[in-house]
């Protein structure tokens, strides 16, 4: 189906960031929604009884991702960027993909028990994926800013992905 193919194409563009406009021209928010739900599901603490299960953590991931993306978009628009609201949300949402992959790997690594070696592996994986996310999103977003404002527009993106990476790294089941 047309929409599914568009979403898949955008995922490939995030994994291999090239200077193309496909992410920017035809924006859609399905990818960010899928990634957000997947990340929120994986960040659940497993509880003993089903009553107090991870309701707040699920909503917390949602709020952090969407509110953070909206804030970054407002920031870049106030700095004079000529990117539209939904395009920016689209790019930021799709570039969460490397961090979702990192979350998957962390969960698998944590199955082998906890310890300092475990932690070093997870730290390395999360750091690599964090760098990948930041590079992918700045490749798309930096072009829309005037040249002397690029750093001002990019540092909130850095903070945003840092917070998500921190949530992933400090996750213990």
């Amino acid at each position, binding site marked *: 189906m047309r929409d599914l193919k568009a979403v898949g194409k955008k995922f490939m563009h995030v994994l291999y960031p090239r200077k193309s406009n496909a992410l920017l021209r*035809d*924006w859609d928010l399905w990818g960010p*929604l899928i990634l957000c739900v997947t990340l929120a599901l994986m960040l659940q603490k497993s509880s003993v009884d089903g009553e107090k*299960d991870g*309701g*707040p953590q699920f909503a917390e991931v949602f709020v952090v991702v969407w509110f953070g993306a909206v804030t970054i978009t407002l920031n870049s628009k106030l700095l004079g960027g000529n990117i*539209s609201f939904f395009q920016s949300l689209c790019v930021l949402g799709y570039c969460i993909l490397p961090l979702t992959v990192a979350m998957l790997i962390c969960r698998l690594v944590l199955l082998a028990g906890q310890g300092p070696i475990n932690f070093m592996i997870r730290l390395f994986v999360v750091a690599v994926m964090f760098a990948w996310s930041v590079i992918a999103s700045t490749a798309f977003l930096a072009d829309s800013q005037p040249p002397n404002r690029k750093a001002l527009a990019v540092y909130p993106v850095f903070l945003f992905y840092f917070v998500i990476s921190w949530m992933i790294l400090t996750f213990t089941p």
Partner: protein
Amino acid sequence: MLAQKHALDSNDDTEDVSLFDAEEETTNRPRKSKIRHPVASFFHLFFRVSAVVVYLLCELLSSSFIACMVTIILLLSCDFWAVKNVTGRLMVGLRWWNHIDEDGKSHWVFESRKATPQDSKTISEAESRIFWLGLIACPILWVIFAFSALFSFRVKWLAVVIMGVVLQGANLYGYIRCKVGSKKNLTTMATSYLGKQFLRQSAPDGWTLPMRLLIQQMWAWCYG
């Protein structure tokens, strides 16, 4: 794109569907009252109503908050996609989307299908009624849920409820813009309509008057 926008404008000028006179039958198109797309009509209502039902019955259905939340999110997403891409086009001949041109500027395009004298293109009355009832009733329900979640301090449900309001409200707004047409301003139209009605009514009877006006307007849209 521009040609289609002009079609929308000339459609507004020549079509004799008046939103302000609910009493008289102003249309001369042949009206069908059978349902031409039963699957589309079913799914239009199914996703919306089941999202509301799951939200209301979540405590009874399953003890897991996460499962309910994910189910409601999935149903809301499917409903948004279905109503925006499929049922609006099939049932009432309206569609809307966002287009980004070469300069990076975004345009919102709202279109309605021109009425042709051929039989196959007319809008069926029953489908139109189902469409607009489903489209208008559900966002109102989600707004009521938002207030009830806020005031009864069930804040963890607020994320889902706000998502419901935003998604269904977006569809409602898009289709109303399609129906009204790109030239007319929504607020001026609403105020001029209410102004006319208040002047016409000689003895306004309190709070039932706005309700009657609202229902009249809704039926006018269903027939129009």
